């Protein structure tokens, strides 16, 4: 289980001599097997917990994200960024291979190559593995970034608006692929935490949605569970209605007038 208790984060604003309290006491619980979305308006700080959690790039003011439960060898988390963040001078294959090798130094070369090949095949990039990021489309680059994260075989997968830069069709496709990967492949990844500003995206993918609000109110406005079967892209009938109802509910939380 991933547990965050009372996480605070402030950035000083030297020009106005004030402090910006980005995170004001965030509590968060993600259980194994859960897909959790953080959603909110721009600037509400929804990416910040990840930025802290993943690499200590930013230090929290107080509070702590904590993984509760049994230990396992290997890294806890891997991340997919909004900008694909592939290293531009390396092939897609080298990008995935070198990242996996750095994050999992205990694997043998053969083991690592096997895992890398498996995930590159899973996202349909094995044919294009020798291309460099600039030579492929945005969708392919982001697929490579997804393969890179999965190839690390992390317990928690962090996604920071991963499909935000893609066109609607590609986004839809990649969402489905992501769910497929997570559910059908024998992955070690137990939890997914995704930051998004897409209402549809959140409702189609998440089991639990954390709605975040702007200052000066509390950071977490509400937590909403979505109890619908997976693969919601093509839901029909009663389930389709429930799906739309969930979207309306989420719009309400975000104080956006329903269309």
């Amino acid at each position: 289980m991933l547990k965050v208790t009372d996480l605070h984060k402030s950035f000083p604003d030297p020009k106005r001599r004030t402090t910006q309290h980005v995170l004001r006491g965030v509590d968060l619980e993600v259980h194994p097997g859960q897909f959790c979305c953080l959603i909110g308006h721009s600037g509400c700080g929804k990416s910040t917990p990840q930025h802290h959690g993943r690499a200590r790039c930013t230090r929290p003011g107080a509070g702590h994200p904590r993984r509760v439960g049994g230990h396992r060898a290997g890294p806890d988390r891997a991340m997919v960024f909004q900008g694909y963040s592939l290293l531009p001078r390396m092939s897609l294959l080298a990008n995935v291979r070198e990242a996996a090798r750095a994050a999992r130094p205990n694997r043998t070369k053969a083991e690592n190559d096997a895992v890398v090949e498996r995930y590159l095949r899973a996202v349909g990039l094995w044919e294009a593995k020798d291309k460099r990021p600039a030579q492929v489309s945005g969708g392919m680059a982001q697929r490579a970034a997804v393969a890179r994260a999965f190839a690390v075989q992390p317990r928690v997968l962090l996604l920071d608006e991963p499909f935000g830069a893609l066109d609607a069709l590609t986004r839809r496709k990649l969402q489905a692929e992501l769910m497929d990967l997570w559910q059908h492949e024998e992955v070690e990844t137990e939890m997914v935490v995704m930051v998004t500003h897409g209402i549809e995206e959140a409702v189609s993918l998440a089991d639990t949605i954390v709605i975040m609000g702007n200052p000066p109110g509390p950071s977490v406005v509400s937590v909403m569970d979505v109890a619908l079967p997976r693969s919601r892209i093509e839901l029909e009938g009663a389930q389709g209605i429930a799906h739309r109802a969930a979207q309306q509910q989420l719009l309400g939380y975000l104080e956006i007038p329903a269309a």
Partner: protein
Amino acid sequence: MTIAQDAPVRTRFPKLGLGGGDGRARQVALTLGWATVGAAGATAIPGPVESLRRLGTLLWYPFYDLGPNDKGIGRQLALSLQRVGIGFFFASLVGIPLGLFIGANRRAWMAINPVVQMLRPVSPLAWFPIWLVVFRDNSQAAILVIFMTALWPTVLNTAAGAGSIPENQRRVAAVFKFGRLAYLRHILVPSIVTGLRLSMGIAWMVIVAVEMLSSGTGIGFFVWNSYNADDMPSVLASVLIIGAVGLLLDLGFLRLAKAVSLGKAT
């Protein structure tokens, strides 16, 4: 230093641009032009036929050694390359760490940059007499000139390369826990190797000039000596050789850059 996106401004290392255009037409035009000049100047500048024949002769006996003023072109080239190599090596040894330091540290940059900017426009050849007085040895003074030639571009390009590593590449390194070695190989070195290539190009140009001044050995001396002996075909042949060697050095660095950056050397 504000590159936010991955979408690289330059996706691959610049090609040499040898393959572009109509190569054959260019060659014919160049040779015809040369032949015309050679004919017009009557005897002063030899035409392509004579020069290429001389080039063949020079390359046929590359390593003969008939005393200090008469050595084969291969020997002269080897001496020049050796000087460039040593000077360049030490320039990298000093310049890369210095460049990394001032690239990562704003205050160091502010402190060192004015000094570099003041010394950089000084022609490296101007230092030559000073080093001659210090060392009393042509060859060592020439190596030091090469050192100074290669040092400034290495420092500045390394600093620029290290300072302009995009934020998201650093994030990748942080998230995937790149070790020191992986960071060096995949992120830092690819961003500075282009600077080294430029330094090498300049060093190769300057060595010819230094050796013309130093009058002793080396390809530059060979050119000057041929001129003094009124042996223009050899001068032209040497120009071709110098160009070819410079091209090979550049190609070598391109290869190196590719090998390093594609992560092929596993």
